[in-house]
């Protein structure tokens, strides 16, 4: 853990040391930017970014922000939450380390996602200090997330590979379209949670890297330009496009995850707080996991 922290600090240090060099954007490289803009031999990332940001990003984020919660609201009204008896037996599923890492990630996301939306709808909010604060919080909350994302990736990796249960789970949409309580094929994580795992960890790392690219902006990492063949400014354009597109996925799954944990499955939120899940909740929603625990004599 200590080593890991040093690694992060060293990376930040290196990135800031790179500033001292000649500007990659406004120095002589500025000419490359002008020639690279919309010319035949370039990727035309400038006009592409301009078009996407002007026409699509805001509309899509708006659609997600309104659409996904409305779908869940309807689900809640029509099918309703799954309620499992409380006060019964509980199963200890997440140890202290798992919970701590998960809590840090959760707190970071609770800041990152709303502030991201504030930036996107900055014009409607009048810009200025409020939106600027959101931008700074967005960047600041990235730090704790960056610290926990690799431990989170590793600690749940073995439970996150897809298997045949997941195909069956997807066929019945996780059983969320009915109120019936019969065991659903899923291990420790169901197919939906696995998808979220990959988006939150690998996708999260992409968000950190693209976000950091935009934050540091005028850094000088020769290797990166060589590998990608992009000028510094095109690297930034690419980062901005990826950050937004990946952001769609992160936001959709984050809202789904929040709805499931807070509303759709009553009491599920205890898994992150004290590490326990209701016996029946595990039995129904994580049928295969329950069977395995039983075979191992753990319950």
């Amino acid at each position: 853990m200590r080593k890991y922290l040093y690694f992060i600090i060293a990376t930040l240090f290196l990135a800031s040391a790179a500033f001292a060099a000649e500007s990659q954007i406004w120095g002589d490289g500025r000419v490359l930017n002008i020639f690279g803009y919309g010319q035949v031999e370039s990727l035309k990332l400038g006009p592409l970014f301009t078009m996407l940001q002007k026409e699509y990003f805001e509309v899509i984020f708006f659609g997600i922000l309104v659409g996904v919660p409305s779908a869940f609201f309807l689900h809640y009204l029509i099918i309703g939450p799954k309620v499992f008896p409380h006060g019964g037996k509980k199963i200890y599923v997440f140890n202290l380390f798992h919970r701590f890492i998960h809590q840090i990630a959760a707190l970071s996301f609770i800041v990152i996602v709303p502030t991201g939306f504030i930036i996107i709808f900055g014009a409607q909010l009048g810009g200025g200090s409020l939106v600027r604060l959101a931008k700074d919080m967005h960047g600041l909350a990235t730090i704790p997330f960056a610290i926990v994302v690799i431990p989170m990736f590793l600690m749940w990796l073995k439970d996150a590979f897809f298997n045949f249960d997941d195909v069956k789970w997807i066929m019945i949409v996780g059983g969320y379209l009915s109120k019936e309580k019969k065991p659903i094929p899923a291990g420790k994580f169901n197919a939906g949670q696995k998808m979220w795992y990959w988006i939150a960890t690998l996708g999260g790392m992409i968000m950190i890297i693209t976000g950091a690219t935009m934050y540091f902006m005028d850094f000088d990492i020769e290797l990166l330009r060589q590998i990608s063949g992009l000028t510094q400014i095109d690297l930034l354009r690419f980062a901005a496009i990826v950050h937004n597109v990946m952001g769609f996925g992160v936001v959709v799954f984050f809202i789904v995850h929040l709805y499931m944990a807070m509303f759709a499955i009553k009491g599920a939120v205890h898994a992150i707080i004290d590490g326990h899940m209701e016996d029946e909740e595990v039995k129904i929603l994580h049928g295969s996991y329950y069977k395995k625990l039983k075979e191992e004599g753990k319950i």
Partner: protein
Amino acid sequence: MSEMSRMKFYCDDHRCIECDGCSVACAEAHELPTGINRRKVVTLNEGIEGKEFSTSIACMHCTDAPCEQVCPVDCFYIREDGIVLHDKEVCIGCGYCLYACPFGAPQFPRDGAFGTKGAMDKCTMCAGGPLETNSAHERELYGQNLIAEGKVPVCAAMCSTKALIVGEASEVAKIYRQRISSKGKGVQSAPYGWSKAYGN
């Protein structure tokens, strides 16, 4: 607004001698912090005979300015005369305008304890900003407002070879045409040169 009446810069690369006067004049006139170059002189094909040339770049005050199209807080405004300006008190320093700009014009001073990107800065064509004209506040945030005083932007005013010119697009085009058509017609002989005055 008619395309021809928009204010435009033009830098004649046959004339630019890479003296850097324009960018120095700009930095001095607007008291820019070090590291911020609203105008920059670049030389291309350096050392290649016949191909080397220099030119001076700043915000080009584009028609349908891409920066204005992408700004998430909509802080840009385009004046009647086509000058593209922005409100620094609304800007959040996100960098999007730089990604959209074909000329690398927007720049970002680092500010605050965390060194985050501060409000964007770029060439104003010496037209200040949205604050009260020639107020101390306007001057502090955007630099001088020479346009309001009927003066020529400082970079073009001081350009010794008059490579850099600025004005209504139609006027700039006229000067450009004149220069092209008079090319190769020989040097104008001065009526009162040293030799005439002292007759040697």
